[in-house]
């Protein structure tokens, strides 16, 4: 289980949990909390993805002499 694959499943897990929270909170009538839960999940996933995008950006700019 290389770190990349672990992060891929971690992203899926955060999204899945956020989806579950969203539907549970919506059913129990707390609509606004549901949106907050989704937003929180999205921010967490973005934090993971941004790290890899930054690494990719540096890799590409160095290999393709773009900077």
């Amino acid at each position, binding site marked *: 289980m290389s770190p990349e694959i672990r992060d891929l499943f971690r992203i899926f897990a955060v999204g899945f949990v956020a*989806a579950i929270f969203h539907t549970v909170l919506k059913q129990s009538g707390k609509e606004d909390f549901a949106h907050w839960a989704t937003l929180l999940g999205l921010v967490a996933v973005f934090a993971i993805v941004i790290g890899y995008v930054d690494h990719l950006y540096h890799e590409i700019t160095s290999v393709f002499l773009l900077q």
Partner: protein
Amino acid sequence: MHIVQIIGIGMTATVLATLLRQQMPSFATLVSLFAGVLILLLLVRSISTALGTFQQLTAAANMSPMFLQTLIRILGIAYVVEFAADVARDAGETALGGRIELAGKIGIVLLALPIFKDVLDVIVHMIP
């Protein structure tokens, strides 16, 4: 860069994205974006070895390195733009994908201008 590893990442990401797409389309896009970034990371390392051999060939043929540098930059822009445009199109933003591709094309034209000027100079000098 192991081809089976890349196919594995692609397959798992596709399955995970379809699982997430019903409730949360935004998360599905993020999963597919992340898988794309992973695959590109694996590929960039092997591309750099290929570019290294090209640089040796141009050095051996004692061409000016400026041509190959522009070529490598154009290649980089093409890869990144194609990746971003496909992610945008995947998320349903076809217009945005087109805008990204337009920006890539303009970038490539700007990079190719000096070489175009050199070619014209050579042609002008050939005419007596």
